[in-house]
């Protein structure tokens, strides 16, 4: 017996240790970041006692707040557009056959594969040309369009996975039960792929809030986003202000995820009671 259990328990212990290592690898930097955001010292590496000054600084800095508001505006608009377009393309690819479907399928995922810098240069050239022809300037529109461009792929992948897992007989059943195509989509397909759509939206929102490289290339005067602003601060010298901003962003994104989980659960429960 012991001959069999011994190696297994060793394996188990090694695997468990590995899990903790992975956690450490993931979360130690975050923990350090959070701790030093409360440090009363200009040097990020040294602990100078507890303070909330850096958060106060963030609150007082109109540049930082402006960047945050820019980021949110861009993220909200680009997420909405990307979710609609991404969901539509997922439906097209999963439910219909049309000419050029395979090409469209491959092209749709290109933004995920090509490096950010390549995409940034492409977009920059595109917008410069477009600016010459249509005469619009760089700023909100160009950043938002760029974010939509790469978010669609992610939304589409997530929604498509959900659609693929859905029994397509359900739509037939709905139509057989006198629903029009639109009603079948509205009452059957949409509620069933909603978790995928929400997931895709969260992903798109986070990606938009996060993006530095592409945004940096296509941004215009007055449209500095928060990550680009932070990146600029680092070049001037790292202070715990960066930590404070990062913690705010971290809490905000964790809050978003928690919110989506909660709404999902609440929907499940209310549906059971009704």
């Amino acid at each position, binding site marked *: 017996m012991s001959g069999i259990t011994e190696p297994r328990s060793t394996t188990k212990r090694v695997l468990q240790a590995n899990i903790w290592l992975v956690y450490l690898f993931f979360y130690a930097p975050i923990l350090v970041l959070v701790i030093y955001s409360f440090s009363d010292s200009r040097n990020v590496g040294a602990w100078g006692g507890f303070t909330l000054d850096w958060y106060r600084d963030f609150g007082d800095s109109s540049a930082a707040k402006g960047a945050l508001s820019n980021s949110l505006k861009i993220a909200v608009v680009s997420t909405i557009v990307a979710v609609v377009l991404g969901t539509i393309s997922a439906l097209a690819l999963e439910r219909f056959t049309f000419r050029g479907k395979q090409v469209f399928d491959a092209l749709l995922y290109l933004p995920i594969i090509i490096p950010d810098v390549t995409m940034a240069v492409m977009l920059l050239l595109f917008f410069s040309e477009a600016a010459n022809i249509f005469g619009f300037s760089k700023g909100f529109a160009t950043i938002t369009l760029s974010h939509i461009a790469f978010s669609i792929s992610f939304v589409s992948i997530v929604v498509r996975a959900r659609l693929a897992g859905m*029994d397509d*007989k*359900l739509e*037939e*059943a*709905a*139509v*057989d*039960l*006198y*629903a*029009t195509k639109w*009603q079948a989509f509205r*009452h*059957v397909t949409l*509620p*069933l792929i909603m978790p995928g759509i929400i997931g895709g939206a969260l992903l798109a929102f986070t990606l938009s809030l996060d993006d530095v490289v592409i945004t940096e290339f296509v941004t215009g005067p007055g449209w500095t986003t928060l990550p680009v602003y932070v990146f600029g601060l680092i070049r001037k010298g790292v202070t715990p202000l960066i930590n404070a901003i990062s913690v705010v962003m971290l809490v905000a994104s964790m809050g978003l995820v928690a919110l989506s989980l909660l709404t999902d659960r609440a929907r499940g429960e209310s*549906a*059971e*009671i*009704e």
Partner: protein
Amino acid sequence: MTAAVDIKGVTKRFDDVYAVDDIDLSIADGEFFAMLGPSGCGKTTTLRMIAGLEFPTMGSLKIFGEEVGTLPPNKRPVNTVFQNYALFPHMSVLDNVSFGLRMNKVDKTTAAKKAHELIELVQLSGMEKRRPSQLSGGQQQRVALARALVNEPKVLLLDEPLGALDLKLRQEMQGELKSLQRELGVSFVFVTHDQEEALTMADRIAVMHNGKLLQVGTPEDIYERPANRFVADFIGQTNLLDAVVEDDDMIILENGTRLMAPNPLPPGTKVAMSLRPEAVDIGPRGTVPAEHQKTSLEGVVESMTYLGHALDYTVKIGWIDLEVRADAVHAEQRFQPGDEVAVWWDRTSDWVVAD
């Protein structure tokens, strides 16, 4: 009387494949009609064309006299019980059942009332608030039935509705479906690959194979008077003996044995004689009753399987094996492998089919 479903020259082609190949079929109002065949025979495609989920490539399809060839499913007075039910997983039993009524803009109170009636009819009262995933297979089946029937369809279509249930539940549901159909008087069109299910439940059966309609008839017709070799072989167990027609009354087996087998075919036609195992009597050699002399063969018992209520013999008749099923209770004598025996049957119980 107008037929509930009238199919004329309907063909369905998927690219180069003829899923349904020029079939004519008429289903009467109030009939329990089964479409039977192996998988890929076109029975489900035919059902889906009646439902409007597929459109015929050619031909005419009428429901109560109205041409519905390319009418979408939501404009047809038929409803479907899908294979694996296709219940909406995000809706309660009540919402599932009332879905069709709500889509038809029946007002809420009436819809709820009717849905409750149907839920009661299928004996699921008290389960209205449950989700499909919280129900057993048999209960899901009942929800699917209620969801379709609540709309009072003129024809109810069922696509292998009992396929996902275990044997005991299946037999129970067979009886329930049959009595439900009698009670409602609605035509049921039922697709199955299970010949026993078709025989026990249906008023009439259509046997399909490779997109073609081979035979339409009552269970007795199909079982006792199969139209061809495939039907004879597919429905129940049978012995098929290759032969050639001699005249109206006689056929000649491959080894030259002449047997009495009334048939309408011209002399010289290659045929097969279908002989059901349970129609054959077995006894010691030389005990063949005089009236069965021309419908008998001699052989040697090769094996015997005890089934409790019956005994299955395999009897070697020269060049082929013949399956014989003897009643265990009334058998005067039991035989062992190696016993020399004779087998005989009624001249009315054999059946000649063209090859």
